[in-house]
């Protein structure tokens, strides 16, 4: 018969053997996302974040976007962006395709949180198609949430506003 010490030891091993870190899930490689977003290979460009742009970004997403430049891919009036935003504790890597003044597609590329991965499904991402930003940087339609994934939904909604704003900046240049 196992002694209580053995049982206690096994229990402590099970409890302490794993930390609270989430696993990175790659749903779509960014390079494949870019290749799928354009008919021909796009040109890779960079948008430098000037003081004015940084202020606008902070107003849109509620905090500074890390770095001084953001790269994007362009072919004619169509652009693609790979942006990151933290849902709860880990960044969600998301791809956006934009043309004209509206969003053509949104895809969750890499998800690192332990909860809220439902945001990758088309029933959620399809809502972003046709999304536009008005002059006050507000979306033209609301995004329906998902129970248990509120922080991820909010993060992706913020990112979609940012992508629309950045696209507008590149079209104005």
């Amino acid at each position, binding site marked *: 018969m196992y002694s209580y010490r053995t049982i206690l030891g096994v229990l402590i091993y*099970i*409890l*302490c053997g*794993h*930390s609270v870190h989430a696993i990175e899930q790659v749903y779509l490689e*960014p390079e494949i996302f870019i290749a799928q977003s354009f008919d021909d290979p796009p040109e*890779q460009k960079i948008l430098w974040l000037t003081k004015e742009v940084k202020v606008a970004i902070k107003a849109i997403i509620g905090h500074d976007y890390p770095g*001084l*430049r*953001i790269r994007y891919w362009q072919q004619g009036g169509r652009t693609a962006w790979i942006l990151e935003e933290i849902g709860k504790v880990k960044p969600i890597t998301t791809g956006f395709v934009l043309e004209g003044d509206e969003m053509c597609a949104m895809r969750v590329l890499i998800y690192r949180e332990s909860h809220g991965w439902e945001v990758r499904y088309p029933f959620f991402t399809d809502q972003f198609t046709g999304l536009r930003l008005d002059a006050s940087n507000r979306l033209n339609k609301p995004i329906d949430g998902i129970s248990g994934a509120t922080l991820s939904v909010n993060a992706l909604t913020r990112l979609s506003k940012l992508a629309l704003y950045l696209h507008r900046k590149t079209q104005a240049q």
Partner: protein
Amino acid sequence: MNWQLPRKRTILAWHRWLGIVSALFLLSLAITGLALNHTELLKLDRIPIQHPFILERYGMADTGTVQAYHIHASDILVHLDGQLFYNDRALASASQPLGIIEGESISVVATATKLIYLSPQGDCIEIIDNHQLPYRTLTAVGTTLDQRPLLISPQGNWTPEDGYWVEFDAYNGSYEVATLEAIAPNDSAVQTWLNNFQGSGVSLYRVLLDLHSGRLFGWGGRTVMDLTAVAIILLISSGISAWLRPSPRNHQSGSS
């Protein structure tokens, strides 16, 4: 088939043992649940926890060694437990640097899976991970024969197309590997970096939430909390069963 409840003594024995085994976890569930229900009143999100055990559970313990390198002549790049610092400022989560390539307008810190672009003042310009690079894992940094920076990987060798490091060209020629020399920082500098690394710790709210769900101990903790929930159901069932089952003593006294 005529199904009968077990004897009351048996039910109570099971009830007792189940209660004893699950008591600790039930207590934890009840106390943390009560506290979480009153987070704002108790200001749980404003109470930082810096105990080494808790920090270790969240991957914030100072278990790694500090490695420091000179950058931009007088500045220092520090790597500690998956975190890079520029002097005493947190820069990015990254593995140990394999090379530092200093340029006129952009300097690049190359790790196995990331390129971190820095301004001459040490501000982060951009962080590119291996999902957006032409290789999966960088093994070393070097220079070509005409002194251009070179990224060496099992998937091939690459040089930046220009000083902006936006696109990369494949390189098949000869090259020299540049090794990164670490420096020995003093104790007070190491302590400053450790304090920066751990920040103000983890909030009590976060710890209680993860303790309540069992996530503080990974899948093992979650499983124990699941079993505790099952134990509650069994305790209720066995309690009701014992109450429904008349004791033999009452039965005997009733029949005499």
